[in-house]
Structures are given as structure tokens and as C-alpha cells.
């Protein structure tokens, strides 16, 4: 497809289980972002990839959260030992990355994670 896709669209899990969230960015977009949005709140930056490298991991809330990107394409956000406070919509975005410039971010539809 032409846009950013994310899977699954919804995920319900039990507290303590691990979850993997996937993002497929727009082809050719070298920058990829993960955000978290709790109900009724704004976007919370989690991590950003330039190619396969993550120069900024400052937003990851704890060491239970990790992310990787391969082939300058698909990215996976992993949450280990999920807690109820992890319940949120996780949004992925991609953009063309030009040094010292900023480009529009294209967002995926998000994954709604519910931790019971």
C-alpha cells in the first residue's frame, strides 16, 4: 500500500505478557517514529530511527520497551512484561529524512493495546 501500515490494529493482552507491535513505513522513507497516546491525551514521543539506527531513544518509558528496525523498512516495538499503564494507542510515523530539515510525518492508523 501507499501509506504507513501497522499491525495488529487491536491487541488485548494479560498483564505480564510480552507484545510486539509492527510498523511498515512508506517505501523510501528513512525516518521512522514511534509515539504513544493515552486516552484523551497528546502524543508522547518514544523513539526515532534514521535508517536502522536509533539516535534518540530518550522517550522510551522503561527498559521493558525496546524497538528495532531492519532493512531501513519495517520496525517492531516490543513491550515486555506488560503493565496496565501500557494501555494506549501506539502510533508509528515515517518521513523523508533530510539533514537539518524537517518533513511532514505520515502516520499509520495505530495499534490499540489493552492490558488487562
Amino acid at each position, binding site marked *: 500500500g501507499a501509506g504507513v501500515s501497522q499491525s495488529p490494529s487491536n491487541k488485548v493482552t494479560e498483564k505480564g505478557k510480552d507484545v510486539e507491535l509492527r510498523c511498515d513505513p512508506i517505501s523510501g522513507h528513512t525516518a521512522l517514529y514511534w509515539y504513544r*497516546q493515552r486516552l484523551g491525551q497528546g502524543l508522547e514521543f518514544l523513539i*526515532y530511527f534514521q535508517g536502522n539506527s536509533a539516535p534518540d531513544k530518550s522517550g522510551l518509558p522503561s527498559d521493558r520497551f525496546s524497538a528495532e528496525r531492519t532493512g531501513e523498512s519495517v520496525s517492531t516495538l516490543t513491550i515486555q512484561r506488560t503493565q496496565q499503564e501500557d494501555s494506549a494507542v501506539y502510533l508509528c510515523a515515517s518521513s523523508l529524512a533530510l539533514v537539518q530539515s524537517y518533513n511532514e510525518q505520515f502516520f499509520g492508523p495505530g495499534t490499540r493495546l489493552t492490558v488487562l
Partner: protein
Amino acid sequence: SQQGEEDPQALSIQEGENATMNCSYKTSINNLQWYRQNSGRGLVHLILIRSNEREKHSGRLRVTLDTSKKSSSLLITASRAADTASYFCATGRGYQKVTFGIGTKLQVIP
């Protein structure tokens, strides 16, 4: 804390009226963007204004930027019910990192 803060947090207007939302930020920026979000899902980019620009138009949207006051406003003219959404400002600084505000929830009543 969030770099951008929108106000008001919620706004309700009649269809046909104009809607104005404001965004304030704390540190220097390269650019500022406005996004729209429907139904708590993906965001859609509306408009980008660079730090050396003061005003920009796109259709029924008008964005202003005052870097001396570290603020921006988004004006939607002749609002429609379909404009009902949350609107976020995002500030860009340096290499790609952007920070989103908490958003303004706009309701346009038919």
C-alpha cells in the same frame, strides 16, 4: 514536559463560524506544524510554517507564527461538521525530532 501547548483544550462552534486555536512553545524551533486527528487514530498533516515565515495559508486554513512570543495560531474559516477533530501543533528542532502538544478538541455543530 510537552514543548507545544494548545489552547483552548476544547472548542465548540456552530457550522459556518471560524475556529481559532493557539499553540505556545518554550524553546527555539526550526518550524511548526499543525496536524489533525480524527477518532483517536492516525494524524494527518495540515500545514508547516518555518521559523522565518509569519503567515501561511492553505485552503480554509490560516496559520500565523510569532517567534518573539513563541506562539502560533491556526484559524479554520467557514467551519464544517467534518472539521470536528483534535488539532495538534508540533514543533521541529534540529534533526527531525518533533514534539507534539496535547491538542485542541474542536467540535463543529451542524
